[in-house]
C-alpha cells in the first residue's frame, strides 16, 4: 500500500465516524449511545489533527481537538448523570422505551 | 528508536534486509520483554525486601528457611529465595476462574494493569542516554499511562463477578482517580520550575549536588510538594495506609479476591513494579534523578554517566524503603478519611504550593 498520506487518516476518521454513528443509531442502551458519541468526537479529532499536521496551521487543529476533548469530558459527565436520572424515572435505560414524546 | 533501526539497517547483519517496519516490531517486542523481566526481577527483590524489612520492623526475622543449595548462593541465608519459591508456587498453583465470571475480562484485567505500569517505565530516565523513549512530554505521559491502571482495576473487580470484589474494585478505582488529582497538581510545581516535561531536562535542572535538588528549592513549598506527591502516588498504588480496599474483612483481597495463581502473581508483580515506578518518578522529579548527590565534590567522579543509573536506583530504593516503612507503621485510613485527605488536605496544599512557587518564581 502506498505511503500513508492525509487521505489515509481521513478515511480512518470517516470509518470511525461511521462506526460511532452506527453505534448511536443502533444501540438500545443509552450508555452505549454515549460511547458512540465519544467515538464520533474522536473521529472528528483525528480529522482536526490530521489537517493541523498536513496543512501547517500553527497547531490550530490540535488546539481545537484539545477543546473538543475538554467539552466531551464535560458532556459525558452530564450525559451520564442524565442517563442515571432516566434510569431512576423509567427503570430501564433502553432508548426505544423512552418514547413518551411519541406523536 | 529511529536511530537504532537505522544503525541495524546499516550494520550488514542478517537483520538489515528487513523493512523498517519489521525491525520496528522486533525492537518493540525486545524492549517489552526486557522491561518485563527487569520489572519482574525487581519485584521479586522488593517482595523479599518487604518481607524482611516488615519482619525486622516487627522484631521478627521474616523468611529465613528458603535458601538454595547452589554453591555460591548457599551461604547467603536469610531466606533470599523465598520470593522465588512464592513465584514458583503461584505459577504452579491452579488458576481458578469463578464460573459466572467473564473469562476473557478475567484474563485481560491483570495484564491491563501490568501493561499500564510497565509502559510507564519506557519513559523513566535511568541515565542521560539510558532512556527507552526520550519523550518531550515524559512526565505527562507517565500520568496518562498510570490512569490506565484504573481501568484494569475496575475490569478486574467486575470480571470476578462477585459483588464484594466489584465494590473493592470500585473503591480502589475511586481512590486512584481521586489521588491522581493531587499527584498531577504537584507535578505541575516541578514542571513550573523546570519549564519542560522531559525527564532529562528535569533531572539536569537538579544537577550540581544535593543542594540543587528540587526538594530543597523554594524551601518549604517543594518539600510539601514532595510529601503530597509521595502520599498521592502511594495511594494510587493502593499501598500501605491507603490499601483499604483489600483490607476490609468482607473485601478480603479487594478486586483481586477471585484471582489465584499466575494472574494473582501478575497483580502482585504490578503492585511492586508500581512501587519501583513511583520510586524512580519521585527521585527523578524531586531528588535529582540520576545526578550524584555530591555534585562536583569528588571531582565530579560520581557524575560520570556510568554512575547515573546507580544513583537513580539508590534513590528509588530509598523511597521504596520509605513506603514499606510507612506500610508497617501507620494504621489504615477509613474510607471517608481516605477521601478526606485526598480532597480536603492534599489537593488544597497542592494548590498552595503551586501558587507559592508561582509567586516565588515571579519575584
Amino acid at each position, binding site marked *: 500500500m502506498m505511503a500513508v498520506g492525509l487521505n489515509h487518516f481521513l478515511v480512518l476518521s470517516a470509518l470511525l465516524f461511521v462506526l460511532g*454513528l452506527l453505534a*448511536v*443509531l*443502533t444501540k438500545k442502551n443509552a450508555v452505549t*449511545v454515549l460511547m458512540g458519541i465519544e467515538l464520533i468526537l474522536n473521529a472528528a479529532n483525528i480529522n482536526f489533527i490530521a489537517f493541523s499536521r498536513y496543512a501547517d496551521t500553527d497547531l490550530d487543529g490540535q488546539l481545537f481537538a484539545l477543546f473538543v476533548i475538554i467539552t466531551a469530558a464535560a458532556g459525558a459527565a452530564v450525559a451520564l448523570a442524565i442517563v442515571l436520572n432516566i434510569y431512576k424515572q423509567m427503570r430501564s435505560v433502553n*432508548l*426505544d422505551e*423512552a*418514547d*413518551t*414524546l*411519541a*406523536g | 528508536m529511529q536511530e537504532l533501526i537505522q544503525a541495524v539497517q546499516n550494520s550488514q547483519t542478517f537483520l538489515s534486509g528487513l523493512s523498517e517496519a519489521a525491525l520496528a516490531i522486533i525492537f518493540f517486542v525486545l524492549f517489552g520483554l526486557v522491561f518485563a523481566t527487569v520489572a519482574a526481577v525487581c519485584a521479586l527483590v522488593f517482595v523479599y525486601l518487604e518481607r524482611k524489612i516488615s519482619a525486622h520492623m516487627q522484631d521478627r526475622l521474616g523468611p529465613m528457611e528458603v535458601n538454595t543449595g547452589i554453591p555460591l548462593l548457599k551461604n547467603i541465608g536469610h531466606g533470599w529465595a523465598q520470593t522465588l519459591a512464592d513465584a514458583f508456587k503461584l505459577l504452579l498453583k491452579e488458576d481458578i476462574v469463578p464460573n459466572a465470571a467473564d473469562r476473557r475480562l478475567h484474563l485481560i484485567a491483570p495484564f491491563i494493569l501490568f501493561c499500564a505500569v510497565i509502559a510507564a517505565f519506557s519513559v523513566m530516565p535511568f541515565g542521560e542516554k539510558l532512556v527507552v523513549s526520550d519523550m518531550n512530554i515524559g512526565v505527562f505521559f507517565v500520568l496518562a499511562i498510570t490512569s490506565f491502571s484504573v481501568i484494569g482495576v475496575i475490569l478486574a473487580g467486575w470480571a470476578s463477578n462477585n459483588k464484594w470484589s466489584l465494590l473493592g474494585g470500585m473503591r480502589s478505582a475511586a481512590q486512584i482517580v481521586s489521588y491522581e488529582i493531587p499527584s498531577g497538581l504537584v507535578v505541575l510545581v516541578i514542571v513550573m520550575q523546570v519549564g519542560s516535561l522531559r525527564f532529562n531536562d528535569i533531572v539536569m535542572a537538579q544537577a550540581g549536588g544535593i543542594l540543587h535538588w528540587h526538594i530543597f528549592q523554594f524551601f518549604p513549598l517543594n518539600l510539601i510538594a514532595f510529601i503530597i506527591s509521595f502520599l498521592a502516588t502511594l495511594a494510587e498504588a493502593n499501598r500501605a495506609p491507603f490499601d483499604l480496599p483489600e483490607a476490609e474483612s468482607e473485601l478480603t483481597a479487594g478486586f483481586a479476591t477471585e484471582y489465584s495463581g499466575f494472574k494473582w502473581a501478575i497483580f502482585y508483580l504490578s503492585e511492586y513494579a508500581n512501587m519501583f515506578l513511583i520510586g524512580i518518578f519521585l527521585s527523578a522529579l524531586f531528588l535529582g534523578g540520576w545526578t550524584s548527590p555530591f555534585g562536583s565534590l569528588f571531582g565530579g567522579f560520581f557524575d560520570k554517566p556510568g554512575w547515573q543509573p546507580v544513583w537513580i536506583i539508590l534513590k528509588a530504593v530509598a523511597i521504596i524503603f520509605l513506603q514499606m516503612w510507612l506500610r508497617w507503621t501507620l494504621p489504615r485510613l477509613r474510607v471517608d478519611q481516605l477521601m478526606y485527605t485526598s480532597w480536603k488536605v492534599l489537593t488544597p496544599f497542592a494548590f498552595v504550593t503551586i501558587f507559592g512557587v508561582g509567586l516565588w518564581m515571579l519575584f
Partner: protein
Amino acid sequence: MIVDYVIWIVLLPLISFAIQIFFGKRLPRQGDWLPTSVMFIDLLLSLIVAGKVFSAYDPEFRITRSFEWVVLGTTTIKFGILIDNLTAVMLFIVTLVSSLVHLFSIGYMHGDPRYSRYFAYLSLFSFSMLGLISVDNFLGIYMFWELVGVSSYLLIGFWFEKHSASNAAKKAFLVNRVGDVGMFIGILLIFAITHTFNFSEVFGKIAAGELSGALLTTAGILIFCGAVGKSAQFPLHVWLPDAMEGPTPVSALIHAATMVAAGVYLVGRTFVLYSEHALLVIAGIGTITAFIAATIAVVQMDIKKVLAYSTISQLGYMIAALGVGGYNAGLFHLMTHAFFKALLFLGAGSVIHAMHHEQDMRQMGGLRHKLPVTFATFLIATMAISGVPGLAGFFSKDAILAASLEKAMETGMLYHYTIFAILIFTAGLTAFYMFRALFLTFYGTPRNKEKFDHAHESPGTMTIPLVALAVFTVIGGYGKWFEELVRKPNLQMFAESGAVQDATHAATEAAAHGAHTIAMVLSIAFAFGGIAVAMLYYYWNKYSAEAVSKKFAGIYNFLWNKWYFDELYQATAVRGTLLLSKAMGWFDLNVIDGLVNNTARLTTLISFGSGTTDNRIVDGLVNWVARIIGWFGATLREIQTGRVQAYILMALGAFILLYVIQLAMV
C-alpha cells in the same frame, strides 16, 4: 222662486225619512203623522208650483238652475233642477197620490209591528220619486232611479219574514237592475260622445249631429231598456205581479201610479233622443206587453194580481203611444191612469182589509152592500179604465188609439196597422177582465159566508182617499190644458239656431181629426163589447167560466201559468247563471287550484332535489376532505415515533438523499 219651492218639495220627504227612521218608534203614534203631514205640505207646494207654471200657459216654459257638482280635471259635471210643464204635472200627480196613500196606510197598516219604519220607507220613496222627476241631467236621473229601486225593494219586502215577500223583493230588485244596467250603458255612451250629462246640452249636440245614425239608435234603445225594467215592459215584466206581496197601499203608490210611471216619464223627458227605428221598437214592445198582460189578467183569480196585470197592460199602452208618436196622448194617459189605478188598488186594499186579508176573489162576492163607498168608487174606477166615455180613462185611451191610427195612416205601414188592431182588441180585453173582477167581488152570492159576515166598511182615513181619487178620475179627463202645455218636443226646439215653431203642426191637425173619430168609434164599440161579455159570464151567469176554461184547457193553462215566463226565465237566465257559476267553480277548482298545487308540487320536488344534492355532494365533499386530512395526519403521526435514534436515522437518510440529488443535478 219656483225652483226653491221645488227644492223644498224634494228635500222635505228626505228630512221626514231621516227623522222617522231614527226616532220613529219614540214619536207619538209611532210618528205616522210626520210623513203624512210632510206629504200634504209637498202637495200644497206642488199645487202652488203648478199654479205658477200653468198660469204662464206657455208650452216653452222652462226654468233651470244648476251648480257644479264634481270637477274631474277638464270635465265638470253639473247638477241641477229642470222645471217645465211636464215636471209640474208629474209633481202634482206624485205628491197627490203619495199623500193619499200615506193617509190610507194609517188605517191599513194599523197595528203592524214595524209601523214607523213603513212610513219611513214611504217618505224615502217619495223623496226619490220627486227627485227623479225634477232633475235636469242623465246622472241625476240614474241616481234617483236606483233610489226608487231600493225603496221599492224595501217596501215590497216589508213583511220579510214571509218567504215569498223577501223573494219577490229580491226578484223585483234584480229585474230592475237588469234594466238599469242597460240604461247606465246608454248614459255612458252618450257621455262618451257628448261629454256632458245635461239634457239640453245633449239634445243640442244631437241636433248639431254629433251623435247620430246607428249610434243614436243604440243609445236610445239602451236608455229605453231602463224604462222597460222600471215600468215592467215585455221582457222584464215578471217582477210586478210578484211585487203584490207588499202591503196594498204600497202597491197602490208604487206599482200603480208613480214608480212604474217613471219609465214612461223617462221616455217622455228624453223623447228627442229616439230615432225613427227606436220609436218602432218602443211601440212594438209596448203593444206586446199590453196584449200579454191583458190575456193573463183575464184568468187571474187574485184581485191584486188582476190589477197588477192591468197596470202592466196600461203601461204597455203608454209606451206604445209614445212609440207611435202620440207623446201627448201617452203622458195624458199616464196622468189619468195614475188616478184610477191608485183608486182601484186602494179599493182592493179596503176590500182585503175588510175581508181580513183575504185576496182570493173566489172567497168574495156580494160585497156591494157591505162596502158601499168602496163599491161605488171601485165601480167608477172600473168604468174609467174600461174606457167608458165621459170618464178620464176614455179620453186618454182614445187619444192613444187615435195616435196609433194616425201613425198607421201616416206611415201606411202594416206594422202600425197591426199595432192599432192589437191595441183595440186589448182595450176590449181590459174592459172584460175589469168588469169580471168587479162582478166576482161585489156582485153575486157571497162565497165565504163566515168572512162575508165580518166584512164592514173601512174607517174614514181609508174611505176619504178613495173618494178624492174618484173625484179626480171623473174630472181629470176634461180640458185641453194638457194638450196645449205638454207639447211633443222636436230637435229644432233645441237647435242653437233659435227655436223654429213647428210649421208642420197645422198639417197634422187635419189628418188627426179624421183618425180621431174612427178610433173613438172603435174603442167605444170594443169597450161595451167587453163589458157585455163580462156580464154574460159573471152577472147573468149564462155561461159558466169554468166550462170555457175546460173547453179551452190548453189556452187556459197557458194563460194561468203566465205564459210560462217565469219558467222560461228560470230555465234560461237562472239556470244559465247557475251553470255558469258551476262551470266557473269547476274551472277555479281544477284549473287554478290545479295550477297552484302543481307549482307547489314542483317546488317541493325541486327543493327535495336540491336538498339531496346539497347533502350528498356538498356534505360528501366536505367529509371527504376531512377524511383525507385525517388520513394524512395519521400517516404523518407514524413518523413521530418518539425514539431519538429513529429521528437521527431519518435525518441522515434525508441528508444522503439530498446529497445524491444534488449530485445528480450537477
